[in-house]
C-alpha cells in the first residue's frame, strides 16, 4: 500500500502550521520525516493518521484520493501510529490496554482470556531481553517506567498488523538496547512489506534505519531523497534557516560586560525527581539559555528554582543561601517565572486582563483594593508591551495567542523582577510578536535584569543568549558560548554528540 501526501496545507486558527507538506510512503521501506521544532512535522503526521483534517492538498492511498473521517477510519485502512503514551489507561494492565475494544471473544460475549494472554505474550516477546523489570501481560501500565510504557504503545500499534506504521518520536523514551531491538523489528517488518514513517530528531538513528528522507522547514517540504545520497551536515543545513532576525552585535558587547558583574545565582548539585545534579553560575545582566531536546529536565530546573517542586541542593541568590518552598517565596525575592503552557499554567482564561496582570501583586494595593491605581499600572505595562486589547476588563480568552502571552509576561514585568525565568515562552506565538519579545528581552538585560531562558527553538537560543547550557537526561551536558555557540553545534549537542565539537 502506498501513501502519498501532496501539498498539504493546515491552519490552526491564524497560524499556518503547514503550507506545503509532502510525504511519499512506499511499502517495504522506512522514510524519515525530519524537521526542527515548529517545522510542521507533527502536524503532517497528524494529517496522515487522521487526527486532524487537512485544509488543502490531498492524500492519496494507492493512488486514489482518500479522506479520513476520524482517527479510527485511518486505523481501519491500515495506518497505525505510535503515540507518546497518550492512549494508555494507567489503571489497566498491559494486555487490557493493548486489546481494548478488540478483545478476542468466546461464545456468549466473554473475553477469551487465554487468547489475550498468549497474544500479549507473543507481542511482549518481540522486545524480550530489553525489559528492566519482569513485564507480564497483567502488569499494570501505570506502574511501568516511561520506556516500557512506550514499548507497550509500540506493541499496541503493531498489534493492528498495519500496512503503514508511523513512529512519532517513538524512540524518545527508549534506551539504546530497546532502540536496537526496535530497529531489528523494523527490518523484519520491511521484509513483510510494511511501510514505516520514522519521525525523529536523532541523526544517529535516522542514518541507521531510514532508506529515504523528507525534510520540513517552516511548514514546507524543502528536500527529499535517498539517505544514501546525503550526509548529516547537509541534512542539518536543510533543517535550519539561513536568515536570522537577531542582533549579534549585542551579544558580543554583553559577553564583554558580563565578566565584570556580580554573581547573581549559584546552583550546586540541584536534584529533583528528574534532575540528577545540576550546577551552574549566573551573573547579573546575563541572558542564559537552556537548550536540548524537550523533556530533559529543563522545566524541572526552572520550577525548582521557582519553588514549585520539591528539590535538594544548594541555591544561593546574591550570596545568600535560599530554599523556596512555594512560588510566593521566590516571588518575594524578586524572581518571576513565565510558564510553558500559558493556558494551563499562566493565565486565568475567564477572568479579565486586569485581574490576570495583577494576580501576584494585589497585596500592594491596600484594602480596599485601589482598582483605579491598578488599572493605571496595568495600562502602563500593556502599552509598553504593545498589547492589543479591547479593554482591561475584557476576558483574556478574547485575545490572540501572542497577546495572551504578553499578558503573562506583563504580569511579571510589572513587578520588575531581578531574575526572570522563561519556560519556552514563544511557543505558538506569531513572528511579529516574537520579534517584539526578543527586543524586550535584550532591553531587560541592558537594564541589568538577569534571564534564564529555556527554548525548544534553537534559532532563538543562538540569536539571543550569551551562553547556552544544553541539557540531557537531567544533567547539563554541554556549555556553548561565544564562537562555539552556533547552529551546527547546538543541534549536534542536542542530538547526542557529547562535547559540542564542530561537525
Amino acid at each position, binding site marked *: 500500500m502506498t501513501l502519498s501526501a501532496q501539498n498539504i496545507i493546515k491552519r490552526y486558527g491564524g497560524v499556518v502550521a503547514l503550507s506545503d507538506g509532502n510525504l511519499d510512503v512506499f511499502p517495504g521501506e522506512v522514510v524519515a520525516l525530519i524537521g526542527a521544532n515548529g517545522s510542521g512535522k507533527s502536524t503532517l503526521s497528524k494529517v496522515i493518521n487522521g487526527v486532524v483534517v487537512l485544509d488543502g492538498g490531498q492524500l492519496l492511498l494507492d493512488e486514489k484520493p482518500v479522506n479520513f473521517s476520524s482517527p479510527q477510519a485511518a486505523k481501519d485502512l491500515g495506518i497505525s501510529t505510535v503515540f507518546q503514551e497518550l492512549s494508555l489507561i494507567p489503571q489497566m494492565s498491559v494486555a487490557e490496554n493493548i486489546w481494548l475494544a478488540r478483545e478476542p471473544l468466546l461464545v456468549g460475549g466473554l473475553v477469551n482470556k487465554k487468547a489475550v494472554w498468549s497474544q500479549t505474550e507473543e507481542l511482549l516477546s518481540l522486545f524480550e531481553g530489553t525489559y528492566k523489570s519482569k513485564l507480564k501481560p497483567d502488569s499494570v501500565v501505570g506502574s511501568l517506567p516511561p520506556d516500557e510504557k512506550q514499548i507497550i504503545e509500540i506493541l499496541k500499534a503493531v498489534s493492528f498488523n498495519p500496512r503503514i506504521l508511523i513512529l512519532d518520536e517513538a524512540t524518545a523514551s527508549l534506551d539504546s538496547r530497546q532502540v536496537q531491538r526496535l530497529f531489528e523489528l523494523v527490518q523484519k517488518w520491511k521484509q513483510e512489506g510494511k511501510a514505516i514513517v520514522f519521525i525523529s530528531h536523532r541523526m544517529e538513528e535516522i542514518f541507521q534505519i531510514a532508506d529515504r528522507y523528507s525534510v520540513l522547514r517552516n511548514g514546507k517540504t524543502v528536500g527529499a531523497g535517498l539517505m544514501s545520497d546525503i550526509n548529516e551536515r547537509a541534512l542539518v543545513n536543510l533543517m535550519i534557516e539561513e536568515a536570522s532576525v537577531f542582533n549579534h552585535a549585542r551579544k558580543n558587547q554583553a559577553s564583554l560586560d558580563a565578566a565584570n558583574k556580580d554573581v547573581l545565582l549559584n546552583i550546586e548539585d540541584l536534584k529533583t525527581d528528574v534532575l540528577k545534579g545540576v550546577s551552574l553560575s549566573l551573573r547579573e545582566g546575563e541572558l542564559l539559555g537552556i537548550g536540548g531536546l524537550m523533556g530533559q529536565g529543563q522545566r524541572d530546573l526552572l520550577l525548582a528554582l*521557582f519553588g*514549585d517542586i520539591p528539590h535538594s541542593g544548594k541555591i544561593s541568590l546574591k550570596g545568600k543561601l535560599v530554599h523556596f518552598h*512555594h*512560588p*510566593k517565596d521566590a*516571588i518575594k525575592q524578586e524572581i518571576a*517565572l513565565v*510558564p510553558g503552557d500559558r493556558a*494551563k*499554567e*499562566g*493565565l*486565568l*482564561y*475567564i*477572568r479579565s486582563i486586569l*485581574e490576570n496582570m*495583577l*494576580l*501576584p501583586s*494585589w*497585596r500592594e*494595593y491596600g*484594602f*480596599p*483594593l485601589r*482598582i483605579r491605581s491598578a488599572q493605571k499600572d496595568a495600562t502602563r505595562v500593556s502599552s509598553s508591551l504593545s498589547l492589543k486589547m479591547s479593554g482591561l476588563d475584557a476576558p483574556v480568552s478574547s485575545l490572540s495567542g501572542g497577546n495572551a502571552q504578553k499578558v503573562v509576561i506583563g*504580569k511579571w514585568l510589572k513587578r520588575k523582577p531581578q531574575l526572570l525565568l522563561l519556560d519556552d515562552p514563544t511557543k505558538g506565538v506569531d513572528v511579529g510578536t516574537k520579534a517584539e519579545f526578543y527586543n524586550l528581552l535584550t532591553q531587560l538585560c541592558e537594564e541589568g535584569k538577569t534571564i534564564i531562558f529555556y527554548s525548544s527553538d534553537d534559532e532563538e537560543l543562538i540569536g539571543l543568549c550569551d551562553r547556552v547550557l544544553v541539557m540531557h537526561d537531567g544533567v547539563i551536558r554541554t556549555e556553548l558560548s561565544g564562537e562555539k555557540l552556533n547552529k551546527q553545534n547546538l543541534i549536534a549537542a542536542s542530538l547526542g554528540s557529547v562535547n559540542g565539537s564542530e561537525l
Partner: protein
Amino acid sequence: MKKFRISPPLAALILAIVLFLLSGLLPNGYGSDVDVAIAQATNILRLSVFLGVIAAGQTLVIISGSEGIDLSAGSVVTLSAILTYVMVSGQNDKVLLALLVALIVGAIIGFLNGVGVTFLKISPFVMTLGMSGVVTGLIIIINHGNVSGKVAPIMTQLIARPLVFGIPGAIIIWAIFGTLMWLLLERTTFGKNLFAIGVNRTTAKLSGVNVTWMNLAAYSLAGALAGFGGFLVVGNTGVVFIALGQPFLFPSIAAVAVGGTLLSGGKGSYWGTMAGAIVLTLITSLLTTMQMPESVRRMVLGGTLLLLVSIYGRQKALRQ
C-alpha cells in the same frame, strides 16, 4: 438563538420581579392593591435575607472551584441557632457573645471540612455531607429532648421588626452584609485569589497564591457565615428545632446557581446570589400560597436546579 448580554444577577432580578407580579394575579394575591403589594414585597424581601446569608458561604466555596460545595450549611445553621438560643436566654447583654460563639463554632466546622477536602483529598460533596451528619448528631446530643432558652428582645427588634422608615431590620442587615461581601470578593486580595483558585489552581500557585491556605479559609469562612445565618434565623423565628436549617440547604445552592455563579468555580458574585435568594424565596412562597405540599416544593426546586445546570453547566465535549 442570539445571546442577549444580560448579566445573570440582572436576569435573576428580572425573573424575581416577573414572579412577584404573577403572584399578584393569584386568588390570594394582592391584585391591584398597591399597599398590600408593597407589604408583601417587603415581607418576601425580609424572608429572603435568611436564605441569602446562608447562601453567602455557599457562594464562597463554589467560587473556590474544584467542585466546592458546603452541604453542612443546613446543620450548622441549626447548631448555631440552638447555641444562640441557649446562651442568650432572653438577655440582651448575652447577644454579642452568642453571635461570637455562633461564628466561631461555624468556622471550626468549616475548618474541619477544609482539612478533609484539602489534606485528605475527600471530595467536598462527600466531606461536607458526612460532616452534616456529625453536626446533626451533635445537635441531638445538645438537644436531648428540648433545650430551654429564649431569644433576646433586641434580636427580635433588629431582625424581625421594622427598624427605619418601616424597613425591617433584617433587610438593612442584609444590605450591609451584601456590601461587605462585595468588598470581600471584589476589593480584597483574598477575593481576587479566591476567584483565581476557582479558575485554575496551577496558575494561581505559580502566581504566588497559597492554594492550601485559601481553601481552608474559604471553607472556614463559609462555616462562620452559616453560623451567622443560624443566629439570624433564630432571631427571626424565636424557636429552635432539629430541622430548622435543613430547608435552607438545597435552595442555598440553587440560589447561587440562579445568580450566575459558575458551579465549576472562578466566576460569580454575591449580588447574583442575593437575587437568586429572592427568586427562590418567591418560588417557595408562591407554592405555599397555592397551598402546594412540601413534595411539590422539592420537585420544583430539584427540577429548577437541573434546568439551570443544563443551561449553564455543560462541560467540554470529548472530541475537540
